[in-house]
């Protein structure tokens, strides 16, 4: 694990957010992924679970490259309810599970601030994930 990611995950742990860094396969390519466990959602009123696990791939060349995407377990009730197309980016196999990748790009015009590797990281991306899970569509 790079020291940079190690520090960012430690910061998340200090704030009570559990994460795991795991190797994965995405379109037959090796990719490192961060799994955010039990991220709170506001979906209770809409009949959705109160939390969800979310996978985020570590981009090539991180932190120079922008963190984007978010993935949910295949079959997750949040799929189709969260922002972003679900059929364009395939799935990631990681931690013994299949994760559906959703086209969520908060730092490239998708609602968050422009990517700044000097300020942003996996420790701040959790904010984008919280926003993501809180804005679920009604069906």
């Amino acid at each position, binding site marked *: 694990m790079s020291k940079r990611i190690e520090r960012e995950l430690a910061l998340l742990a200090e704030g009570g957010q559990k994460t795991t860094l795991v190797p994965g396969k995405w379109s037959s390519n090796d990719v490192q992924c961060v799994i955010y466990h039990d991220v709170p959602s506001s979906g209770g009123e809409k009949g959705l679970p109160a939390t969800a696990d979310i996978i985020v791939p570590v*981009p090539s060349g991180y932190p120079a490259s922008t963190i984007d995407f978010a993935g949910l377990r295949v079959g997750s009730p949040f799929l189709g309810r969260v922002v972003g197309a679900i059929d364009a980016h395939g799935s990631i196999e990681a931690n013994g599970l299949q994760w559906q990748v959703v086209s969520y790009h908060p730092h490239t015009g998708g609602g968050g601030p422009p990517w700044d590797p000097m300020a942003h990281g996996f420790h701040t991306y959790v904010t984008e994930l919280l926003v993501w899970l809180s804005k679920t569509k009604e069906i």
Partner: protein
Amino acid sequence: MQPKRKPFAYAKKTQPILVRGAEPELGCLFKALLSRYPDKEWGTFAWFGWRETPYGLVLTIANLDLPKHGEMDTEVGNVVFHERYTLRMALSAEERELAPGVIHSHPEGCQTIPSWIDDGMDTYLADYFSGFAPGRPYVSLIFAQNESGQVSASGRVFWKGEWHRVSRFTAENRQITLFGYQQPSSRQLLGERALRTRLESAFGTEAAARLEGSTVAIIGASGTGSPVIEALARAGVGNLIVVDPEHFTDSNFERVHGSVRGDIEDVPPKVKIAKRHINAINPNCRVITIQGSLPQKEVVDAVVWADVIVGCTDQEHGRVALSDLSVRYLIPAMDCGVTLEGQGGNITGQIIQMVRFLPSDPCVYCRKMITPRIVSQELMSDEERANRQAAAVLEGNRPANPYWQTLPQINTVGYLTTTAGGMMAGYAIGWITGRFSPPFSRLQINLSAPWLGVTDDPVTPNQNCPCRRMRGMSDQGQVDMFISPPLHWKDAVVVESGPKERGFFGSH
């Protein structure tokens, strides 16, 4: 009668050790060290970043921990650290990853060979710090200045249970002569110098000697890099590290110096063309060639030995990596890019951009000169880029998924890249010889504009930027590093590892 001095025990198999410093720490250091000149010494504890490479150990002066009032003995002429100072450093060592060390002066005009008192101090402190900073080097440096202001130095490092002599010092804007160092003066080199009499008469004999003893890394051996390599080889630079991941293609022929017709069929790695060309110009030049890119480990391992790095990749991630290296390993660097602009069948812009990266300069992010989307696209695999572009089209080219935008094709021609490369080589020579420095921060010139359309973009560093706290931290600053090598890149290959003798990585 004085007892016979027991010789200090150095490792039988010593390894090259480079110590590098930069401003403003060096200015502060010399002000302190010379504060009791000309007759008395002074000293300080310091913290060093370090990187262990296959070629030896590189150390960078990251911070000085100057003595506070009462922490050193002012009554005596030599350096005596009081226990409270060493204890303060020991406790500090437990809270950081840097290597501890002592830097002290000898009186004006004196040799910098360690005295028996220095032997005792170093033996004691190396053992003392091993308990507080296990697994880290302990560094001891001695500087002295003569009446003419010339600085000489010696140093030794306790590393993995053995003492090693520092084999090389490099310092931004300062010339520091290693104690006992003799400039190359073989007949062969004297003969070589006859080939550079114009340069020598313009810059001086000492400057020519510095070039012979210097190491320059060139990142990118194509249009801009190849003329840099050629100019430096002709100028007599003694050691060149050439890095490029690509093989030669026919479209390179118009720009790559040293390429010949046969290369169009053979498609050799560009670094092999560079090596062949260097050898043809200066067979005495020692060359390392690596087929790879920054920041791959094999590339960084070699490049951290350079006195100057010249970046010629003309890619955004290359600039990010160059800026990171310059800041963390205190290496003066320069980046270059060129482009042609056209409209209505006319060439309207012939633009050269040069960016100076001194360790104290603002980083690429302080300068706001990087577009993260472009960096992301450069760094993703071809497959990922194609997938993302296809997906973005499916999604209707939404602003939130900008990857449908293709990377711009940078148009260049040989005369423009040669002009840029020649200028870059000139500034590298200026740095190495100490005769001049790039008088700009980020220069753009346009060969098609009146008065060449010269612009500079001086920016001050953002004091809150991580680049300020990672200065000189070497590998111990990895937590703040700007970029990592993508998993999908091919492994870097050291094509020519260069001579193993001390010349390359040893005394300069």
